[in-house]
């Protein structure tokens, strides 16, 4: 009974989108990129290197199902028969579990390529903050990887870390950013980087009379500092762009940018589709070669 009543503060809206300006039947090649992450999964359908449709869903506990699920969700809005897809590339945490993929490509390569697509060829440093990892990728103007650094061992700064806080503070994760700015004065960051210890610290702060918003501000600042320290390990070269779900959290992003000291690049695209978009483009490249 209690399980049904328990509100899921981590829940964000799954989304799918279809490009109204493209007729897929005019395309020479239809390619599909599927990015199965530990927390979310995306599918991007490209018609000759233009995004035709995409979908973004929660991964859940079963990777093979997740690939099929996000594809189904993406195809829901479009009338492409699945067998019309010329090539499919799988990537991400569960890339080996995209059973219908023609081949798998590393998420690093896909993210670089995808960022190059959604941000343009000027992007040189990609900060990808996913559900369970943080990657900093140096790329060239064709979206090829030059260097990278990844941390996938620690939840601090990741989407999961934010979910833990959404849960303990009972704030829907999509509201965290906005509410973290509803403070009189910006507080100091929480003193622990570790999400588990930061959570205990947060509970103590609430007991001491801190508002939820103030605790959120302190946590977002701490996470921004954590992410910044990881970015510094590779170093940033301008154009700097952010991909992944955390790019949508203004509470962290707005605090992070002054620390990095650069204006980030801007995109109209959903930052979570970078990996799948890159995968679909790499699939398209393969079609051209053949």
């Amino acid at each position, binding site marked *: 009974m209690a399980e049904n009543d328990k509100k899921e503060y981590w829940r964000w809206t799954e989304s799918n989108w279809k490009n109204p300006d493209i007729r897929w039947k005019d395309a020479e090649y239809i390619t599909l990129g599927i990015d199965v992450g530990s927390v979310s999964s995306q599918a991007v359908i490209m018609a000759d290197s233009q995004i035709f449709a995409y979908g973004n869903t929660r991964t859940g506990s079963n990777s093979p199902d997740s690939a099929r699920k996000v594809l189904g969700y993406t195809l829901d809005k479009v009338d492409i028969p699945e067998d019309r897809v010329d090539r499919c590339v799988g990537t991400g945490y569960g890339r080996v579990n995209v059973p219908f993929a023609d081949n798998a490509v590393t998420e690093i390569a896909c993210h670089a390529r995808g960022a190059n697509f959604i941000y343009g060829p000027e992007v040189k440093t990609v900060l990808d903050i996913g559900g369970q990892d943080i990657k900093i990728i140096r790329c060239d103007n064709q979206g090829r990887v030059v260097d990278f650094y990844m941390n996938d061992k*620690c939840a601090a700064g990741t989407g999961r870390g934010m979910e833990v806080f959404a849960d303990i503070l009972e704030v829907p994760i999509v509201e965290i950013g906005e509410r973290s700015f509803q403070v009189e004065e910006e507080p100091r960051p929480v003193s622990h*980087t570790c999400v588990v210890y930061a959570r205990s610290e947060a509970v103590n702060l609430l007991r001491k009379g801190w508002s939820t918003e103030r605790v959120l501000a302190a946590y977002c600042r701490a996470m921004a500092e954590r992410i910044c320290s990881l970015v510094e390990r590779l170093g940033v070269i301008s154009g700097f762009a952010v991909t992944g779900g955390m790019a949508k959290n203004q509470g962290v992003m707005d605090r992070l940018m002054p620390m990095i000291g650069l204006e980030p690049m801007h995109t109209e695209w959903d930052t979570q589709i970078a990996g799948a978009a890159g995968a679909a483009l790499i699939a398209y490249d393969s079609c051209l070669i053949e």
Partner: protein
Amino acid sequence: MNNQIIGSGAAATGFNQQEAVARSLEEALCNAGVTRDQITKTGSTGSGRKAVGMADIMVNDIMAIARGGRYYFNNAGTVIDIGAEDVKVVRIDNDGAIMDFTINEKCAAGAGAFIETIARALETPVSEMGPLSLKSGKRIPINAQCVVFAESEVIGLIHAKTARHNIIRAVHDALASRIASLVFRIGLQEDIVITGGVGKNQGVADSMKRELNLRKIYVPERPECGAATGAAIMASESTLKTIPKAL
């Protein structure tokens, strides 16, 4: 009294340090059959040592742990104090002097918080984690290095119908592995003693024995009192003149 323990007490710190001090002191006085005004010297230690109003001396954690471990086992070579949020490892020489030490206080995956978190996920009281894990004969690896990710992994194991005692043992093994790497950093010197609240968990002690490749590992009856014992001993040795306080 005369450097023998006559009473001890412990209480969860919770949100009120002063109250926890008072409660644990009450228990110790009761065990010992003495009253507050019979106490001649008080030593405090731990992260809240300044909150102990009655302390004559404040003792740093490392020294308290070393002295405490040595009190319980006079051949102690390495004392591993496993707390809720940190682990301290102290290596001592034949005379009990501190040779080296190391602390992990940054990451929950190496401390009691790991066990608490998984106990919650398994809906199992922390006190049962030890006995349950000892029923396991199976070794399952936990791939995640982080408690937050390990929790997700454990939920996956639960969905895959993995037996609870095997999961708990896997968690203890993972914790022991982290702590062992700390121990190896400063060098292992037998006899190995475990103190701190997590010392009450026999499953962890068992996993530590395996990880450190030991025939025997020593745990006092009330391991959570290890550092306090050390503080008491150092208070009694302290040459500060103290008038018994009316408390």
